[in-house]
C-alpha cells in the first residue's frame, strides 16, 4: 500500500495534468453524452432538463430524415472506402515499380490534397461543380469533351450532389492510403518477389499471394480509419450542400449537428451521436480485435 502510494507520488508530476485533461475533455464527455441522450436537455438551464427515458432513441428510429442521413452515410462509406483504398493501393504499386523515376516527386504531388485544408478543398469543389455554364466541370464535359449535351445542376439534385461529396472524399483521401502503402511495400523483402518470379508467378498473383497478405495489418489499420472517416464525414457535406437540396444529402453527422446547434435539441442530437458511435464501433470492432494480434512476420 505504502509502496503503491510512493509510486503514484513519483509518477504523478508526469501524469497528473494530462490525465486530468483526458478525463475532463474525453472520458467525462463520453459518459455525459450518453447521459444527455436520456433527457430533453436544456442548454441554457441544464438543471431544469426533463428526463426523457428512451423517447430520444425512439425518435431516432422514427425520424424519416435519419433514414435519409443513414442511407447517405452508408453510401458514402460504400463508395469512398473501396474507392480510396483501390486507387491509393494502385498508386503505391505504380510508384513502387522498379522502373519509375522521380518517386519522391510523385509521392509529394499525390499527397498535397491530404495536407490541404478540408474546408478550402470543399469550397473549391463546390465551385468546380457550379451549376450551368459557370462551372468548369460542366464546361469540360459539355463544351470540351462533348460527353453531355446540357450542363448539369450538380448541387441541385440529390444524387449528383451526393456524388460531388463522394468525389471530394476520394480525391482528398487517396494520397493518405498511398503514402502508408508505399512505406509498407518497401519493407517487404525483395527476395520474396524474386522467388515468385522464378516460380513463374504473374505480377498480379504476386500481389494477391505475397504483398497483400504481408501488409494485412496495415490494411486493417487503413480500413478502420477509412470507415471511421466516412461515417464521421462532416465538412464536405456541410460546406458543399449544407445537406440540401431539401435535406436529402444530410449525413448522420451533419444532421445531428443541425439538431444540436441549430435547433438546440441536445438530447436528441446526443441520442443520434450515441447510435452513430455504436454503429462505428460495430463496423470496426472485428478489425480492431485483430489489429493487436496480427504482426508482420517474414
Amino acid at each position: 500500500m505504502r509502496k503503491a502510494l510512493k509510486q503514484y507520488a513519483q509518477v504523478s508530476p508526469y501524469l497528473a495534468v494530462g490525465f486530468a485533461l483526458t478525463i475532463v475533455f474525453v472520458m467525462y464527455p463520453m459518459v455525459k453524452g450518453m447521459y444527455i441522450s436520456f433527457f430533453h436537455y436544456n442548454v441554457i438551464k441544464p438543471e431544469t432538463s426533463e428526463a426523457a427515458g428512451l423517447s430520444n432513441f425512439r425518435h431516432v428510429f422514427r425520424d424519416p430524415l435519419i433514414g435519409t442521413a443513414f442511407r447517405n452515410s452508408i453510401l458514402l462509406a460504400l463508395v469512398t472506402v473501396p474507392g480510396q483504398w483501390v486507387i491509393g493501393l494502385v498508386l503505391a504499386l505504380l510508384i513502387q515499380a522498379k522502373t519509375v523515376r522521380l518517386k519522391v516527386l510523385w509521392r509529394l504531388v499525390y499527397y498535397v490534397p491530404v495536407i490541404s485544408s478540408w474546408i478550402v478543398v470543399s469550397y473549391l469543389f463546390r465551385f468546380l461543380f457550379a451549376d450551368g455554364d459557370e462551372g468548369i466541370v460542366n464546361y469540360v464535359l459539355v463544351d470540351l469533351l462533348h460527353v453531355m449535351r446540357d450542363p448539369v445542376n450538380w448541387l441541385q439534385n440529390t444524387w449528383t450532389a451526393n456524388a460531388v461529396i463522394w468525389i471530394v472524399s476520394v480525391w482528398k483521401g487517396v494520397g493518405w492510403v498511398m503514402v502508408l502503402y508505399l512505406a509498407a511495400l518497401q519493407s517487404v523483402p525483395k527476395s520474396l518477389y524474386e522467388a515468385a518470379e522464378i516460380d513463374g508467378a504473374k505480377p498480379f498473383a504476386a500481389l494477391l499471394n505475397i504483398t497483400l497478405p504481408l501488409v494485412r495489418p496495415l490494411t486493417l489499420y487503413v480500413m478502420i480509419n477509412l470507415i471511421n472517416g466516412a461515417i464521421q464525414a462532416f465538412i464536405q457535406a456541410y460546406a458543399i450542400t449544407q445537406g440540401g437540396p431539401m435535406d436529402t444529402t444530410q449525413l448522420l453527422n451533419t444532421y445531428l449537428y443541425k439538431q444540436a446547434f441549430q435547433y438546440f435539441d441536445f438530447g436528441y442530437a446526443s441520442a443520434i451521436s450515441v447510435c452513430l458511435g455504436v454503429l462505428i464501433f460495430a463496423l470496426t470492432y472485428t478489425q480492431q480485435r485483430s489489429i493487436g494480434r496480427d504482426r508482420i512476420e517474414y
Partner: protein
Amino acid sequence: MRKIRTILIHLLLVIGVAFVVAPFVYMVLTALTTDNFSLPSPHKLMTDTKTFANFAQAWGKNHFQLYFLNSLMVTLLTMAFSLTLSACMAYAFARFPFPGKELLFRVFIFTLFVPAIINIIPQFTILKALHLVDTYQGLVLIYVGSGLVGSTFFLRGFFERIPRELEESIVIDGGGRFTIFRKIYIPMSLPAIGTLAIFSFQGTWDEFVVALTVMKSEAHRTLPIALQLFRGQYATYYGLFFAASIIALVPTILVFLIFQKQFVQANLSDGSLKN
C-alpha cells in the same frame, strides 16, 4: 515490352496527377484574375492579365490578418501544450511502475476508438459550465485534451525502445528522473516528436467543427471559420475568396515541405537510386 510497360505506368501516373492538380490550378488562376463577379469562364482564365491584386486585397480586408494570427496563436499553443504533456505522459507509461498502469492505458486506447463527434456536445456543455465558451483557452483546452491519448500512445512506443543502459551515465552523475527524461528521452526521440508536431500543426490549423461550435464572436474566429465568413460577404468576388483560401493553405504546405524529408528519408527506396 518492358519499355512499353514503363511508359504506360508513367502515363497513368501523369493522368492521376492531372486530376490531383487541376482543381488547384483552377483555384490559382481564379485568384490571379480580377473582376470575378461570377465564376470566371475558362477563356477569361487563360487570357486575362494575371495580377496579385486579390492576394493583397484579401490579406488587408475583412480582418484577415487578425484571423490568421488567431489561428497561428491557437495552433502554436496547442502544439506546445500537447507535445509537452504527451511526452510527459508517454514517459510515465514507459518508465514508471505503478498499480493499474496497463489497465489505465487500455482505457485510454479504448477512447481512441470512440468517434470524436460523440464528444462535441458534452465538450460544449463543459466549456459552458467553465465559462470558457468563445475563449481561446477553451478552444486550446479541447484541442489539447482530445489529442493527448493518441500522441501518448505514439510516443510511448518510441520511449520504450530506448535502451535503459543509457540512463546509467545520468544516474552516476547524480541526476534524477527528470534529468534522464530531459537529457535522454527527449533528444533521442526528436524525430518522433517532430512528426507529432507536424500532425498537430496540420490538425489544429485546419480544424473546423470544434472552432465553429465554440467560437462565437467574429473577432475570435480562426481561419477556417473566417473563410466561410469571407465567402458570405464576398459571395461574388471569387478571386478574392480563392486568394484568401490559398493564403490559408500556405502554412500547412510550407510546414510539410520543410519537414517532409523526415518522413521521406526513412523509406527512400533503392529503386530510385539504382536506375
